[in-house]
């Protein structure tokens, strides 16, 4: 098992996997990768299971040394990665030789880039997941974003796919899966993050006036600076509050678009509060969640309503694409 030395942590880098589902009764939200599609694909490129833990970088990447070498892949947004002085590609299997350094800079596209390593990042699981839950300081690496000089452990690699020998097995012989893998151009195109987010109606949609809904669906909203993994705050045309006073707190779904006083909507995100008392005008459909994870401050977005059957069809379409054998070529 090798390690990763953090030379520069980047702006906000955390350990994430696919999150911990099932602890709503304790008030614990799942957390997990903000762009789960990229995490899953990055893991496949290095021969990991979809849900292996990786590093999630935000807007500005870090610099990482691999004293024992490692098999890597970068997925999500392009942070201009350079391995030992040479630019490297996104969405393909890479090899860091012992002692090599991977450096990333500011994003050239969306908000998040995933650094996946063969074997995954090994941390003490909290409620069955490696994901960092920042607000509570639980999970991940000491429950926090990475700092300079942190040392992460790379997990034991899956040895079923290719037999390896010797203590430097990870650093010899290319990818963990025995060769270079690459995401297909078609998949990349189909999974490009969207700026027009598709939504279904929210549980309080009919509390809002027709004029309020018109404002919501016809306006362009800008992602506010203070957005984070808990919620994506939007700025734009204010949505008039429903008449009739406060509602009682209820469970809230991932991707819920809630409208607080003041009318500037907030999309509840992976580290969301589990319950809330603001009316929800809409809910982002699950196949568009990965697009939420790539939204940067100042990005402009719009909402488009789809019916329940369409939402379901789009969800199946994405899962079929994710399951397709042509997704990744060797």
């Amino acid at each position, binding site marked *: 098992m090798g390690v990763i030395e953090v030379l520069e942590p980047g702006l906000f880098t955390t350990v994430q996997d696919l999150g911990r*589902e*099932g*602890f*709503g*009764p*304790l*008030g*614990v939200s*799942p957390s997990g990768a903000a762009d789960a599609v990229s995490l899953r694909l990055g893991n496949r490129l290095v021969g990991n299971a979809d849900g292996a833990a990786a590093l999630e970088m935000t807007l500005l990447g870090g610099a990482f040394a691999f004293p024992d070498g490692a098999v890597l892949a970068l997925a999500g947004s392009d942070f201009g990665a350079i391995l030992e002085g040479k630019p490297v590609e996104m969405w393909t299997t890479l090899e860091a030789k012992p002692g090599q350094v991977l450096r990333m800079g500011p994003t050239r596209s969306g908000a998040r880039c995933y650094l996946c390593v063969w074997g995954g990042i090994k941390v003490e699981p*909290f*409620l069955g997941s490696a994901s960092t*839950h920042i*607000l*509570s*300081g*639980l999970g991940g690496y000491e429950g926090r974003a990475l700092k300079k000089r942190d040392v992460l452990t790379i997990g034991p690699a899956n040895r079923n796919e290719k037999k390896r020998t010797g203590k430097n097995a990870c650093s010899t012989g290319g990818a963990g899966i025995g060769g270079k893998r690459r995401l297909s151009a078609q998949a990349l195109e189909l999974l490009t993050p969207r700026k027009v987010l598709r939504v*279904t*109606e*929210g*549980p309080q*949609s*009919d*509390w809002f006036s027709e004029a309020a809904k018109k404002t919501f669906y016809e306006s362009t909203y800008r992602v506010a600076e203070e957005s984070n993994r808990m919620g994506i705050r939007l700025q734009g045309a204010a949505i008039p509050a429903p008449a*009739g*006073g*406060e*509602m*009682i*707190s*209820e*469970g*809230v*779904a*991932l*991707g*819920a678009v809630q409208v607080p006083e003041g009318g500037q909507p907030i999309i509840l995100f992976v580290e969301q*509060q*589990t*319950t*809330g008392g603001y009316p*929800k005008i809409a*809910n*982002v*459909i*699950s196949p568009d969640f990965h697009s939420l994870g790539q939204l940067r401050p100042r990005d402009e977005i719009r909402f488009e309503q789809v019916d*329940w059957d369409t*939402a*379901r069809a789009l*969800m*199946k379409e994405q*899962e079929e694409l994710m399951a397709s054998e042509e997704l990744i070529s060797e």
Partner: protein
Amino acid sequence: MRTSAGEGARFQYSSDQSLLVYFEEQGKQKEAGGAPDAVGTGAARPLQNRITLKANENVRRLLRLLEVEPVAGIRNLHPAYCSLLIKFDAIRMRHDEVEAILRKYLERLEDVRLPKPRRVEIPVCYGGEFGPDLAEVCTLHGITEAQAIELHASVEYLVYFLGFVPGFAYLGELPKELVTPRLVAPRKRVPAASVGIARNQTGVYPFATPGGWRLIGRTPYKMFRADSDGLSLLSIGDRVRFTPISRERFVALESAWG
């Protein structure tokens, strides 16, 4: 809106992978919410304008049943005052299929035995730097700090549910004399272990988070610990009392809990 009723409950699609179950209020039940939540929201939303003990008991019964007899494909549950959000594997199940299963569960609610409530005492050091809003709460109600403390510590509260952040217990009901609106401008950061009140609710912030409740004290206890068995000091359905303690006692207990 996709909504339907049955077995004393109403179903509402919440997202493409979740469903809300709302429990109906029944007029003759004791109204736990009291006046401040009974803001007239009209007949259009009969299920969401009052907190009732009966509705919450049904939430707890359904939650219990789903925990004891889990349904394959149901992935998460978010209980609240009078509703339960159910998240499911939407590739595997449709909303109407989940609803059909839940209807069967709802028919059995009366037979669900809720665990005997645990009684938990939480020591609180009231006022001063720990309770920066206590003085204003007293001014609003025309009472002394001693009276406010006595009132807050005088009743046994029910844990309606845990929500918002890990281990945050929604407790009710506050004595009428203490019912106070939220802060107009929420704080960006409420210190962990602060005891707050808002409308007819009270609760303890387990972590430093933003928050709009009025802070009246602080407990030396840790509300949520990753290294303890139950994780959260409080569980849904528990009965809670607050006990006033001195600053010295606070310091002693806090270091004991460290």
